[in-house]
């Protein structure tokens, strides 16, 4: 799991993405992702955590080629993911990289039956034994017996069942990477655990790699091997899932950790005024967290800190400069 002896299956290398916003004749840019580098190893579950607008979903969408990066490159396996696919390359890429969406109520076509929803990717990929594979996939996502589900429309299913159909659609082409964008946040608490366990089971059975986006630290800790913390388009810290809760290093990670709900907390520490997320059209020149950081130094204002290594972790903060 995430051992450095393997070569990564996906590498983001200095990825930058900005979106144009028009204001009259002036064009400004929202800097959604800035200089992000991240390696993901085969069979690993990595969670990208952060608040809304931090760029975590943009990063996923860059890999799935819904967006194209402005700078940097994304490497899948040993090849660079092209900015524009040829049809054949695209089919090949889509077969290996699949997505699970947040809202199972809007990610399934309401006028198609489960059978058609699951069969479509197989048809496009021109694969054989479609029916057999559909049954198999439904069993893999624990919708059993499959014949009870195959002729149902999405509205006949509960939220949990729909999300399982979404997962079945993602695994039906036997992908090696699944991008999961907040897969449990729209679901009720009592069925979340089931979906998370299903994701873990699929990883164990097929050695699937997950890029999982969430804002829920507890879920991230439960499901993932490693966690990457994003803030204002930058990746601030990379660590193991336990470290983020037990020993957060970056001041922003510490803030997230303190703010996360925890019924077992005995004494709650006051956050006080914590400031607001910076405007991404004119992001701070230095560290993006500097305006809110209580440890801010002079250089934080003017320079973006590089990554410093603390044990095996990477932290983008000048506080850890002396460790190097």
């Amino acid at each position, binding site marked *: 799991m995430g051992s450095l002896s393997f070569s990564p299956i996906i590498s983001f290398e200095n990825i930058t993405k900005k979106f144009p916003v028009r204001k009259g004749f002036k064009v400004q840019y929202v800097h959604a992702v800035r200089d992000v580098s991240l390696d993901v190893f085969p069979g690993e579950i990595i969670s990208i955590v952060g*608040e*809304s607008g931090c760029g975590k979903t943009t990063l996923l969408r860059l890999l799935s080629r819904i967006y194209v990066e402005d700078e940097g490159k994304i490497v899948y396996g040993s090849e660079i993911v092209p900015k524009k696919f040829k049809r054949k390359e695209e089919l090949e890429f889509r077969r290996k990289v699949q997505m699970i969406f947040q809202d199972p109520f809007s990610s399934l076509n309401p006028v198609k039956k489960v059978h058609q929803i699951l069969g479509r990717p197989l048809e496009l990929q021109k694969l054989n034994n479609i029916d057999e594979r559909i049954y198999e996939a439904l069993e893999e996502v624990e919708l059993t017996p499959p014949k009870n589900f195959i002729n149902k429309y999405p509205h006949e299913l*509960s*939220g*949990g069942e729909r999300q399982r159909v979404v997962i079945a659609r993602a695994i039906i082409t036997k992908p090696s990477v699944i991008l999961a964008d907040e897969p449990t946040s729209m679901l*009720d*608490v*009592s*069925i*979340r*655990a*089931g979906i*998370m*366990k299903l994701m873990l089971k699929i990883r164990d059975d097929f050695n699937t790699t997950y890029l999982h986006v969430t*804002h829920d*630290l*507890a*879920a991230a*800790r*439960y499901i993932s091997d490693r966690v990457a913390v994003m803030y204002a388009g930058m990746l601030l810290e990379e660590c193991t899932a336990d470290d983020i*809760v037990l020993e957060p290093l970056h001041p922003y990670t510490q*803030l*997230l950790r*303190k*703010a*996360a*709900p*925890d*019924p*077992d*907390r005995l004494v*709650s520490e*006051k*956050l*006080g*005024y*914590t400031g*607001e*997320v910076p405007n991404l059209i004119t992001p701070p020149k230095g560290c993006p967290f500097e305006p809110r950081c209580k440890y801010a130094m002079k250089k934080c204002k003017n320079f973006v800190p590089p990554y410093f290594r603390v044990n095996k972790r990477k932290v983008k903060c000048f506080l850890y400069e002396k460790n190097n």
Partner: protein
Amino acid sequence: MLLEVRNLSAGYKSQGKEIEAVKNVSFSLDENDFLGIAGESGCGKSTLLFSILRLLKRPGEIFDGEVFFKGEDILKMDEETLRKKRWKEFSLVTQSAMNALNPVYKIKDQIMDVILEHSDYTKIEALEIIERVLQMVGIQKERMDSYPHQLSGGMKQRVAIAMALVFSPSLVVMDEPTTALDVVVQRSIMEQIDEIRNTNKFSMIFVTHDISLLFEISKRIAIMYAGELVELGQTKQVYLNPLHPYTSGLINSFPKLTKETKEYKGIPGKIPDLSKPIIGCSFKERCQNRKELCNTRPEFKEVIPGRWVACHFPL
């Protein structure tokens, strides 16, 4: 006792079908209390809140029951008396409160509207009050002249909370007030509410589906399932020692931040169809300890002082 709800039933009528979304709910609330109501989507928590405040709109309808607020039955009050009590005696903050602000009015004008409508204050006095309540929720007074679109989501929600506190009501009902917000903003708003409650005592009913948050912050907690209250008690006691199988299932189905346990169960099955009559305990289909007796409806009764549960075989 500030609020007493007795055998409240409410629901929706459409196309000849009657859906009982809230069934025979009874509970009471003291002065300076903080009751959290937790439950999954469709369990009737919003219907319950809206019924208590008599805000349930058609096709919603209150079928039966009484809601005593300071000794008077809200459900029997005439419209005018009720209207005068709103904002002053009790107020509501909703999930979409931040989007309920009128986009073409400045913040101060919206709050001013509430003040002038419900009191005899002059505009100048009202401005002072606005300044004070905004400060209370952590908004600088310069922001008074802003329009809603100039504020962030968190600030808009703070304005909505400030509006609910203008007349220092004795009951503030909050329906998922922080659900649309990020964790850091959520935490700092909850802190602020806590601080305000320390100085201006008021009672709060707080509804959310974020169960881990509710277990952390509330004083007492009520768990709702399929329109009924299944358990009620001091939050810490309920968390450490749940009596109803559903409560215990809920607690086991979300990952805890600091606990090492790597096993979460979830609850198999799904919520019953509320348009069909439910015989006996509403949770029995999903319950692992169900027995013969569960086919008769369990009563919601006090098993230990302050601790209520609706189960024949409490854990």
